[in-house]
């Protein structure tokens, strides 16, 4: 309940149509009893404006601040004044001065008389803002003790990097890998395209070193052959059920980093190119294994291939397969493999069929150019129409769209750069964690720019290719970012949850469970209180939508900032004028 509201009117939002001082006078007249401070300022969001408000807040006279100016969707991170005051916004810019037009559609002349409609509009919004603020409750979330163990799902490049970053900052980590060894996809790589200076040579992936660091870190407990069966609870107090073999174990964890990785596309996409039918058509992963073994041979006869055809975008960017996305890293590893082929078989000739070369990383384009210019790989822009055997060779027929001609290459070996798919079982895992995933099975972040590694399940973060195809540097970066977010979450003694959450009035709750049924986030649980069933909000899970509040017939669960009384106050302010 706010009683001493500081009302601040942003001149830059209302001028020149309206006079901020006049609006301040109106607030003083109509709502003065509840608003000891009413001020106008040229631009509230400026450092000077914020400092002015802060000074009033620090003087201790206010329990709430009402910013009347821009939309609450703007500058939402500017107007925060600590936990002593409540803050709310009145939208006078977007909703009033910008949108107001005279009934005839003309704009209001600045400095002229203020039309009655405009006046009533701005006054209504001001009154609504004050009465809503008067009914605003002060939130005081109280949380039980927190657990700061981080559960990392996936022992690949991304997961291990996240684990190391977190452990390096002092956190306990449980690293869960469903296979029998760490390393993930990167373990199958011989080398990776260059990731460090001078960005010229394909380099070692460093995966073995990484595995060594992880297994040697006392803060990281590695659990191989293990999967997550269930995650219950809330951030800082999750309980993860881990399954290994026939055994199940419940471990308390604070948060989860998902690094479930990806999987190469399989037969469906590869079949048109003869994969599975002709021995000399292999996937790039199979070819990589040959290179790693130092033994590049034609599977059919064990001879060294002299002509190698790489086909890119196999399964990627293919609407007919419902895989319209670019897998991102194929261009780079194909260039790498073309270079490695020349390294191993100097008299070989590589051909690369491509749609576009996508190499936006640091020095990536230079690297593909080296494949072409220094290693003589011939890049042909066009789709491959068919691959068929003839006289012990594979004929690759396609179009060269730049030359506008048909091309046919007699190849000893055909390598398919298969696209990336979401890891098997990703949707099931997503359901378990109540996070969203796209139609391809990649997990969804909360917001691509604002919350890129957060999910819409609080305390669950994602990193690497499980969110979408990524190369190693991107994955590493995201793994570290996720770790940083988790650490930020744990950086306070108590988790300070988003104050826009629902709370149950335990005296009024009758335990009917309707809120539990409708909460999209499973943020409400049933508890027993003095022998009676009651609802309880898991504050760290609640996302603040308020569906529960509109569901509860007795109004026993109220969403802070948008309580029934606040909205009713606004309704009353509008209906009683």
């Amino acid at each position, binding site marked *: 309940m706010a009683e001493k509201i500081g009302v601040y009117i942003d001149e830059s939002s209302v001028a020149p149509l309206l006079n901020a001082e006049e609006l301040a006078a109106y607030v*003083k007249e*109509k*709502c*003065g*009893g*509840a608003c*000891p401070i009413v001020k106008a300022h040229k631009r509230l969001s400026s450092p000077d404006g914020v400092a002015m408000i802060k000074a009033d807040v620090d003087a201790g006279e206010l329990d709430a601040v009402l910013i009347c100016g821009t939309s609450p969707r703007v500058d939402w991170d500017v107007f925060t004044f600590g936990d002593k005051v409540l803050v709310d916004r009145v939208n006078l810019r977007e909703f009033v001065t910008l949108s107001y037009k005279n009934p005839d559609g003309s704009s209001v002349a600045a400095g002229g008389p203020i039309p009655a409609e405009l006046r009533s509009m701005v006054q209504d919004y001001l*009154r609504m803002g*004050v*009465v809503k603020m*008067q009914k605003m409750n002060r939130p005081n979330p109280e949380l039980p003790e927190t657990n700061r163990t981080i559960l990392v799902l996936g022992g690949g490049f991304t997961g291990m990097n996240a684990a190391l970053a977190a452990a390096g900052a002092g956190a306990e980590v449980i690293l869960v890998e469903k296979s029998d060894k760490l390393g993930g996809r990167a373990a199958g790589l011989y080398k990776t395209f260059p990731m460090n200076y001078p960005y010229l040579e394909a380099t070692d992936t460093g995966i073995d070193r990484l595995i060594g660091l992880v297994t040697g870190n006392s803060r990281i407990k590695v659990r191989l052959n293990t999967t997550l069966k269930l995650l219950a609870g809330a951030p800082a107090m999750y309980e993860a059920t881990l399954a290994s073999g026939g055994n199940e174990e419940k471990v308390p964890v604070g948060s989860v980093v998902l690094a479930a990785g990806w999987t190469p596309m399989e037969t469906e996409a590869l079949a048109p190119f003869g994969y599975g039918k002709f021995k000399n058509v292999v996937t790039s992963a199979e070819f990589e294994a040959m290179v790693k073994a130092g033994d590049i041979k034609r599977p059919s006869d064990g001879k060294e291939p002299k002509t190698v055809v790489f086909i890119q975008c196999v399964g990627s960017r293919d609407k007919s397969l419902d895989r319209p996305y670019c897998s991102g890293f194929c261009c780079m590893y194909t260039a790498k493999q073309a270079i490695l082929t020349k390294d191993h078989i100097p008299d070989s000739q590589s051909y690369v069929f491509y749609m576009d070369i996508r190499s936006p990383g640091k020095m990536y384009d230079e690297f593909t150019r080296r494949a072409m210019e220094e290693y003589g790989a011939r890049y042909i822009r066009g789709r491959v129409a068919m691959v068929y055997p003839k006289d012990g060779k594979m004929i690759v027929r396609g179009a060269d769209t730049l030359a506008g001609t048909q091309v046919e290459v007699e190849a000893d070996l055909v390598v398919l750069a298969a696209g990336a798919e979401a890891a098997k079982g990703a949707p099931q895992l997503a359901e378990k964690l109540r996070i969203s995933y796209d139609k391809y099975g990649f997990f969804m972040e909360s917001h691509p720019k604002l919350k890129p590694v957060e999910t819409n399940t609080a305390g669950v973060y994602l990193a690497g290719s499980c969110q979408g195809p990524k190369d190693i540097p991107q994955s590493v970066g995201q793994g570290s970012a996720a770790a940083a977010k988790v650490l930020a979450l744990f950086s306070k003694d108590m988790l300070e949850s988003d104050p826009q959450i629902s709370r149950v009035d335990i*005296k009024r709750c009758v335990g009917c469970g309707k809120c539990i049924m409708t909460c999209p986030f499973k943020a409400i649980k049933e508890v027993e209180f003095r022998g009676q069933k009651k609802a309880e909000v898991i504050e760290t899970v609640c996302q603040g939508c308020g569906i529960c509040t509109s569901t509860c017939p007795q109004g026993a669960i109220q969403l802070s900032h948008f309580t029934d009384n606040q909205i009713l*106050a606004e309704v*009353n*302010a509008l209906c*009683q004028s």
Partner: protein
Amino acid sequence: MAAVKYIPREKLPEWLKALAAQSRVLVPVEEGGSVVFRQYDPARAPVFGSDATAPPKGAVFPACQELFSYAYGKEGEDNAPTLKLDPKTEAQPTVVFGSKPCGARGFLIFDRVYMGKKFPDPYYIAAREATVFVTMACATVENTCFCHWVGSGPADAAGSDVLLTPVEGGYTVEAVSEKGAKFLDNPALTDGAAKAAEAEAVKKASRDALGEAPDIASSPAALLSLFDDMEFWRDQSDKCVSCGACTYLCPTCYCFSITDEGTGTAGRRMRSWDACMHFQFTLEASGHNPRPTKAHRLKNRVGHKFSYYPTLHDGLIACCGCGRCVKSCPVSVDIREIVQNAVAKAKG
């Protein structure tokens, strides 16, 4: 008191119109199957035959009335806060016409509380003094009537100012208070001496129809002795659904609530009927409730009427026996039965 007068049935509108010219006149009219007191409208025929669904309680004690308005503000150079309170106690001159005598008698129970020496209630007193009750003695009684149990009867004039009695062709009219005497000054009223005997016979017949009242003189002590017998109260209240029909329709129930309503910085403090049968009535901010179950609440209601109030007020039972609580109860909780059960149980 003044001599008996008489008014023929067809002359009633004339009298009512004359009264309505001077003050608000409330008469029982039918509305959607119920009979309620409404301002007299010559186009709507009053219903005098049976007792009104709701008594004329609201005439003196409105379901909701403003105690005062408030306004917060700022004053002077230094913006000093101000608070202004503005009470309204005035009442409008009113005639309640055609209520049963029990409907007026209910105010006797009010009077002792609202017109006490220590805290006389200016709102009530203004309305009470401005209101005249022209009641009508009962020619017939109903299954739920029990005014004779509580020291009253179908022609009990206590609380009334003028008493009508239905006789052949019209009504006898008697002034039964000083206030009432001034009201008989109307040409429609003629001398009623000739009808007086008939009127007395009507009164006696309806009194006889009620039969013998049981002896409930021991109810104050009996109810108190059963205060801790919650099994008894559970049995009495089992079927109660804790609604407020009995209290809101009771001519003697005088409890109220006070609530503030307003937007922003101005509004009103209002007094409104409240019902002791509601859980919220005694609910404290801490969540504690001294009367947590319907058994506790029914105990207080019956106890108040037949024990606590009479103990404090010279034996006057806080019930006028109109029977509305029985008749209007959705599950037919019968206060007569409860009082009798209590008296019997206390005797052992």
